């Protein structure tokens, strides 16, 4: 009896983890953009985040001209933007509400408190000079959530689906974060290696909490390839795409061995395929073939993986 998990619960807990991870990463992206926008091309940089999230048309229709405050509001608090931090937390809370019989009381209560905080914020609370503090609070709230989950969430099937959602979202968001700098802020040839370029790369690393670790591996210099390679392929950096994929593999294996679930074949195949492609690449080959195209491919395959989980475990109709 205790071994069973409703398919709907599995899907909800998977998405609960994704929404919280997404909120954290959105805060990271906003934060790092704020850093980038301090150069003379501030306007263009706020454009970049809109393009990054494929929100150009939606943003245009709603706000017209792109300004820092508009972009920040759109991604932080806008109730009409399904991708805003506000809505990520709102969806996470709605899922958590449904999942209250499954998750710990502490998990629910903390998400509820975060939501109630966000709900009462006004646009001026996230204006540019307050943005960094806001992003910090969101990051902290999401990390508190992660810590409470780690320490209180009973580790039956639900925990596996939670972890899987978190790892998939983290891998996806990491590719987006790299894309900001490497594709959309593609520096002119003159800029490469300049002080500005270097400081932007280090800001990117910091936004992913990877700066100090990167320095331990690469004490000297800030080579763009090395940074991108670190963020994609490091086997020890907890946010690297490679680490996320290994986690997903072992979670899927755990569902089979610990809970005797019969499904999971599609998801395992898809994960193995992505993982093989990641392991076969070096950063040199990736850059030679086009980094943006590579990141895009990873993102598409992660969507395939989510669909495979839906078919294997969540009772989704298979196409």
């Amino acid at each position: 009896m205790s071994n069973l998990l409703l398919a709907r619960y599995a899907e909800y807990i998977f998405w609960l983890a994704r929404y919280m991870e997404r909120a954290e990463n959105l805060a990271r992206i906003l934060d790092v953009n704020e850093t980038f926008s301090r150069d003379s091309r501030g306007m263009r940089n706020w454009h970049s985040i809109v393009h990054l999230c494929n929100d150009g048309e939606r943003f245009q229709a709603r706000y017209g001209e792109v300004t820092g405050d508009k972009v920040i509001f759109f991604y932080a608090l806008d109730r009409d933007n399904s991708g805003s931090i506000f809505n990520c937390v709102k969806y996470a809370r709605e899922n958590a509400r449904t999942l209250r019989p499954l998750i710990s009381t502490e998990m629910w209560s903390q998400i509820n408190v975060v939501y109630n905080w966000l709900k009462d914020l006004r646009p001026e609370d996230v204006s540019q000079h307050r943005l960094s503090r806001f992003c910090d609070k969101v990051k902290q709230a999401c990390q508190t959530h992660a810590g409470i989950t780690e320490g209180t969430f009973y580790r039956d099937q639900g925990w596996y689906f939670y972890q899987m959602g978190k790892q998939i979202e983290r891998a996806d968001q990491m590719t987006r974060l790299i894309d900001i700098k490497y594709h959309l802020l593609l520096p002119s040839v003159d800029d490469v290696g300049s002080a500005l370029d270097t400081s932007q790369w280090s800001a990117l690393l910091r936004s992913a909490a990877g700066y100090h670790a990167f320095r331990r591996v690469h004490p000297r210099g800030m080579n763009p390839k090395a940074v991108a390679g670190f963020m994609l392929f490091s086997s020890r950096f907890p946010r690297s795409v490679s680490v996320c994929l290994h986690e997903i593999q072992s979670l899927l294996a755990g569902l089979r061995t610990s809970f005797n679930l019969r499904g999971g074949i599609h998801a395992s195949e898809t994960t193995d395929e992505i993982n093989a492609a990641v392991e076969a690449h070096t950063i040199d080959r990736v850059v030679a073939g086009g980094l943006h195209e590579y990141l895009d491919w990873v993102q598409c395959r992660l969507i395939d993986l989510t669909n495979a989980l839906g078919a294997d475990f969540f009772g989704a109709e298979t196409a």
Partner: protein
Amino acid sequence: MKDTLAASFGRLLEGYDQGPFFDELFGSQGQLAPHAEAIRQRFNAIGFDELRGRASDAERELYNLGITFIVYSEAEAVDRILPFDVIPRVISKPEWAQLEAGVQQRVAALNLFLHDIYHDQKILKDGIVPADLVLGNVNYREQMRGVDVPFGTYVHICGIDLVRDEHGTFRVLEDNARIPSGVSYVVENRHMMMRAFPDMMNDIGIRPVEDYGVRLLDAMMKVAPAGVDDPQVVLLSPGSYNSAYFEHIFLAREMGVPLVEGSDLVVENDRVYMKTTDGLAPVHSIYRRIDDAFLDPLAFNPNSMLGVPGIMDAYRKGNVTLANAIGTGVADDKAIYAYMPRVIKYYLDQDAIIPNVDTRICREKDGLQYTLDHLHELVVKPVGEAGGYGITIGPRASKEELQQAREKLLADPANYISQPMIGLSVCPTLTESGVEPRHVDLRPFAITGDSTWVLPGGLTRVALRRGTLIVNSSQGGGSKDTWVLE
């Protein structure tokens, strides 16, 4: 008297005046209830500001924990806590013994009545209850004719609303035999009191309430279809937008069973299954928090999106147990209520341990005439309405309101009953301007598998607005912790 009161409750109750009502903490006028003396003294030791401070901490905690019900206004769903008053209502040991026996008796009679009307209908043939009142009732389910339920238990979960009159006599106001709600507040209010007022509760000897979930699970397993070794119990909810969703969560969690929605269940070959990550898994016992009418679109309301197609057939074949049974609504109808003392006598050959409020049935000529003649003194209630709606309180009504009530009565007398105005008991309650008496009622909860267990105490609802008698949460009511003494 005044001096004794002041000495007993100090600053907190200085000037407290229970009025002409029975008081749940003080007792009758001029006769201090001895069992609550220690509790009065302890609250006396707390200053007003301290009490206010702890009360607002408690309310914030309820909100953060999401112990809320949902109110819909202008297309927006708002979470509200059920306002919680920190001064408890106290019930002595002998008082409780009588209430417990009375509730058990009432539940036994309700179950025997339901079995009878869905089988031989002896009580109708013997003319104790008018047949058309039962068979013509909108909540009578023809589909239940001849269906046998385990142990003859139809009302597995029963909430019986009690009030206490000016003399301190408990009386039944209403039976809730369909989907009584509120038990989650009983348990959560107690948790809240234990956190906020441990010093008030030490060594008082208060009967615990936290095993409700275990008792409920035991009963649900007991009533599962025969021959199932390890029955799968689930709680079926209309979903997270239902105003009582917190309670569904609470009960599922306390029982440790899945909280399912209609879309999680399927019926194949007259058996019920739930959709899991590992395919379909059988379900045997369902505590359903969905009304009869929405439970099975094939059997009842065809437009229901909440239900499970085919579940009624599985149920009729005995492959799954539903709690409460289908068709219990006919027994808690306000029209049937009037006959309950005779129903108890008929099946159990006993007088009702807890009396009814004197009730006149307007479908009967005498009852209608009496009601029309005494309209200004009586409370007139439509039968089959919940939530305190449509009630006319004669002594409080304007001339126009009385005239409207008279017209409605004459147009459809069978839709109404009338009762004398009862001066509901009061309990000291924290208000903006100090501690004041507020009217309360009591809803004990009874769980029945093969026998009936009554949760010590129950939900004390309090009418927070001065002078009002209506305690429903939808109309500004709150709740209190209910302390049954050991």
